[in-house]
């Protein structure tokens, strides 16, 4: 549904996006993950036709972004990072205006607004001025304006940024409820957002593609080793030596009170590690699987992983 081929964007000397290639399958939610200034917003702006690319190709819903911009704009719903709202309009007035400029036929406009209000959960505030509603509702209005013309593709730039935890959960539920009807590409720098909401991910850093694929694919391809990361009350050489003594454990490395315990694939020594930690009362605070997407992302961000 979204296909990007060798996309490059330069702002003068600065290269914001470098030779980016990825693909999003229809009806799925894909995350565009990267630290700040990784090129996420630039990529989205190119896909939505706000910015032209310096080189490369992109197609959305079968239309070429550069040669058929109007067709692309008609089949895309876009929530920019700064939610575009006219504060002096009412929620339904604003959605009506967006329906008009997104070329929803006059006869269907009312229904389109009602549907968007309904699915974004805006019923209670639809007659209020946008400047008087809360941040979370403003974000919902942003999503409502993106889905107003029932686009095949949704591009959401940092949809949960700046919201409180309850609002974040609500917005994530809202996005999940749109799965299937729409193909969604959402950008974020928060990893849990990807693991909770998305089916797949494109990880970029400094404009370069680091990894892309469905979550299962990625997990499999990066798991050369199995293991756990163990967070203890107090970590050190003593604890590391104890863990190293477990049969099958190949490597233990300590970083503060976090110990990384590795063994070769195919075995599962988690029980043994936990038992040891309990027996010797090492004070387990946390134990998580190694080679999770989180580790991958941390490696990407800290620059330890080459594309």
């Amino acid at each position, binding site marked *: 549904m979204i296909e990007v081929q060798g996309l490059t964007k330069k702002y003068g000397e600065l290269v914001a996006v470098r030779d980016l290639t990825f693909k999003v399958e229809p009806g799925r939610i894909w995350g565009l993950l990267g630290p700040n200034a990784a090129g996420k917003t630039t990529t989205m702006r190119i896909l939505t036709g706000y910015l032209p690319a310096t080189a490369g190709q992109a197609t959305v819903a079968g239309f070429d972004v550069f040669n058929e911009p109007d067709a692309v704009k008609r089949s895309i719903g876009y929530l920019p990072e700064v939610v575009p709202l006219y*504060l002096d309009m009412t929620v339904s007035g604003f959605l009506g205006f967006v329906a008009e400029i997104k070329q929803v036929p006059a006869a269907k406009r009312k229904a389109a607004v009602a549907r968007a209000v309904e699915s974004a959960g805006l019923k209670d505030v639809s007659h209020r001025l946008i400047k008087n509603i809360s941040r979370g509702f403003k974000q919902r209005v942003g999503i409502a304006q993106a889905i107003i013309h029932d686009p095949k593709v949704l591009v959401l730039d940092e949809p949960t940024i700046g919201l409180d935890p309850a609002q974040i959960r609500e917005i994530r539920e809202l996005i999940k409820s749109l799965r299937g009807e729409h193909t969604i590409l959402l950008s974020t720098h928060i990893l849990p957002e990807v693991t909770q909401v998305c089916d797949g991910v494109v990880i970029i850093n400094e404009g370069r593609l680091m990894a892309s694929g469905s979550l299962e694919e990625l997990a499999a391809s990066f798991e050369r080793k199995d293991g756990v990361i163990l967070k203890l009350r107090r970590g050190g050489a003593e604890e590391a030596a104890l863990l190293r003594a477990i049969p099958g454990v190949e490597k233990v490395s300590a970083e503060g009170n976090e110990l990384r315990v590795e063994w070769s694939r195919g075995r599962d020594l988690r029980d043994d590690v936990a038992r040891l930690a309990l027996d010797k009362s090492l004070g387990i605070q946390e134990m998580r699987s190694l080679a999770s997407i989180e580790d991958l992302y941390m490696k990407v961000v800290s620059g330890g992983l080459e594309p």
Partner: protein
Amino acid sequence: MKNIWSLMKKEIGAYFSSPIAYVVISGFLLLVGYFFYSLVLWFNAQAMQMAQNPYYAQQININEMVFSPLFHNMSIILILVAPLLTMRLLAEEKKSGTDELLYTSPLSVGQIILGKYFAALVMLAAMLGLTALLSIFAFAFGNPEIAPWLTGYLGLFLMGATFIAIGLFFSSLTENQIVAAFLTFVTLLLFLVLNWVASSGSGTWQSVLSYLSFSQHFEDMTRGILDTKDVVYYLSFSFFGIFLAHSVIQSRRWR
């Protein structure tokens, strides 16, 4: 066409959902009303004196003595008012990030700009239309000629349309409304008085400068003379302003 209409409606709504429209229109009406009143008082006093003398009595002319100076005053007020109408048109969209919504919708830059331009024109027409009500008194109690009155208003509208096009251009350059308004004001004032230097110059320079000046082309219209070259001047100036605004927006997106 439908897209231009959608944007136009939205912009007119924006004028009236903020205090701008009310403040600007009422201020404009207050000033014009005051000028009209003082001109009529002066005209009465003059007419009284002139009527004593049969030669001068022939020359009493309400068009020349009231409307012509009134139109000149109004053109100066428009120089102050036009920047207020245009400053937010493109600058605010950029500042609030709503330009991203417009430019990712299936609209052309031309449609966006024209929608905004026409919305400001509607405001201008409404303002001028309301001042025309004042003239009812002059028509009810006197006998002014209608033709110079009509061409005077046409001149004001054309000149205002030019002001708005220039304001739109400056609004496209910046996201700061005050900067946009001030640059518009400076430019308009400069073009209005461009013919001052022309009077002491000579040859080609003189004719170029006085041709470019707003006031030169307005002069005839307040006297009831409708010359196509004046109309063409204002229309081409407006077109130029819109074209510049269009180029600025277009180039910004391609940078």
